């Protein structure tokens, strides 16, 4: 692999080919650049030394970005143009183009309705999620630590875990009414199990050698828990929390669709019934953006807490 051929190869790739070319090939070339540059410091581009090189690099990165968001852009284009040019007029009513939906979204934001619904949804899923995380982590630690408790509770937990949360929605509504309590409860219920199971798994999979090492230092049970078991289980627990975050929003929307006077789920269903179709799509769009945002945040938190676990063996060589 000599540098001249590499340069030629890259030059042919800049331009339209880079943008539409296969992502793998582009990836490979950037990697080759990196390794050659690392191996030979003389090849490393100094600032302003080889502007063409940097330009190519930017082009590659830009191409990658375009490719990465291509599907989204295509989808949005289809949404915008499809209803107008592809769909029959009767369907167009039920599937307004993107700009109409965005206008509706703008109106909902301007008159403050969306904020109200969002706030209602967020406070419900937030409290349900919070309750679930606290109780599930606590119970998970207990269950994982005391084998007898595990053998006692596990069959029951298995039954509940395998009962879809939404199947219990009528029960929650009958027992707790259609107010906030039933909605917070069902969110808590749905978010509870991913956290619980991951907490148990996290504590169970602590390396026994680390426990031996800590014991040999004369740590008490409590110290062992606090300094070895908990930190070691944290990444797994956060995986559970992230899963719970996603499911808490999913379940809440469904619950709000069934019986509520505010919230995003209510907004969607109510708009549908009032034939405010653009508003309905605005609600759906908000839900998916909210889901993305929550997942993104929780992934960030999870990554922060499992930094030490990443790249086992990959950076040692």
């Amino acid at each position, binding site marked *: 692999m000599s540098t001249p051929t590499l340069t030629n190869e890259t030059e042919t790739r800049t331009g339209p080919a880079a943008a539409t070319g296969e992502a793998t090939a582009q990836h490979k070339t950037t990697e080759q650049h990196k390794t050659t540059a690392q191996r030979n410091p003389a090849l490393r581009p100094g600032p302003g030394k080889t502007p063409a090189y940097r330009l190519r690099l930017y082009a590659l990165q830009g191409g990658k970005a375009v490719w990465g968001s291509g599907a989204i852009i295509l989808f949005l284009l289809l949404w915008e143009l499809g209803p107008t040019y592809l769909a029959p007029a009767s369907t167009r009513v039920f599937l307004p183009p993107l700009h109409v939906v965005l206008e509706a979204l703008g109106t909902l934001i301007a008159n403050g309705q969306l904020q109200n619904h969002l706030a209602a949804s967020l406070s419900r899923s937030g409290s349900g999620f919070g309750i679930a995380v606290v109780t599930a982590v606590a119970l998970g630690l207990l269950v994982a630590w005391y084998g007898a408790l595990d053998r006692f509770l596990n069959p029951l937990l298995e039954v509940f875990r395998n009962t879809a949360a939404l199947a219990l929605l009528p029960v929650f509504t009958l027992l707790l009414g259609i107010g906030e309590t039933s909605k917070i409860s069902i969110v808590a219920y749905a978010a509870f199990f991913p956290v619980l199971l991951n907490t148990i798994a996290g504590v169970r999979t602590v390396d026994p050698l680390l426990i031996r090492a800590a014991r*040999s*230092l*004369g740590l008490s049970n409590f110290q062992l828990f606090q300094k070895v078991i908990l930190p*070691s289980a944290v990444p797994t627990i956060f995986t559970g929390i992230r899963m719970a975050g996603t499911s808490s929003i999913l379940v809440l929307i469904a619950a709000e669709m069934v019986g509520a006077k505010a919230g995003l789920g209510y907004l969607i269903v109510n708009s549908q019934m009032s034939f405010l179709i653009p508003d309905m799509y605005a609600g759906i769009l908000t839900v998916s953006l909210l889901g993305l945002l929550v997942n993104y945040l929780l992934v960030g938190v999870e990554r922060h807490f499992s930094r030490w676990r990443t790249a086992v063996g990959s950076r040692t060589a």
Partner: protein
Amino acid sequence: MTSGTGPIPKISLQNITKKFTVRPSKDNPEGSVLTALDGISLDVSAGEFITLVGPSGSGKTTLLDLLAGLTKPDTGQVLVDGREVSGPGRDRAVVFQQYALFPWRTAAANVSFGLEGAGSDGKRYTRKERAEKAREYLGLVGLGGFEDRYPHELSGGMKQRVAIARSLAYEPDILLMDEPFAALDAQTREQLQTELLRIWATTGKTIIFITHGIDEAVYLGQRVAVLSSRPGRLKEIVDIDLGDRSGDEDVRSNPAFVEHRHKVWSLLHDEVRRAQAAGHAKIQPDGTAPDETRTITTGKAA
């Protein structure tokens, strides 16, 4: 350096026996008893470096666990400074073969692990003192400047150095080492052996070092204790006199080394063959051994 003379020995094992109950399994419906150690008596004086060799399943690790206070003997006593060992303590430190570093802690935080909380004398270190100690001991094992690295960023040899620094940091009198260099490549192992001798010379710790390697045992130990195949009994203790080992010369080709090595080899040879014939394998920390059911069937046949 002979044992049993003068004042109280640093470590004294008195007629130790340790048995494990093997839980009933499909192949072994009644369960059975595995005798890991049988009547071990050994005195180690302060500042001594003793190595322990024996075939697989001869109870070397069990012996170390007893010394560390992680298990209790069925009969006999383990004395440290004349007092019976009742549990783990900060006068003893264990270095494990698989390093046992806490992966979520940096090298420095690993080293200062044993310094957190109140020590045996009630002394507490401040965060700053702990960081200083960590730096000091990482420097001692030749890892100055690696304070902020996580274990996954370190090589095997470096990890074991961190583990050694962690054991030394809370200043125990005794270092218990369970095949610490077995997972390392030959070059790193030799390097760490030399460094361990240097650290031993500077700190004056009493070291009990378990190994599979005869060369390693002879090179490091002032005495080499040879254990028999299961049940582990103390077969013989070989005194090693190689003169000054700190020099640069190649001790391993020295005639005295070769002679000692051969002596330990012949002692161990029969035992290893016997252990292999019986199919002995390592005793797990929970007291089970993968070969145990097979031993019983051969026992019945004999």
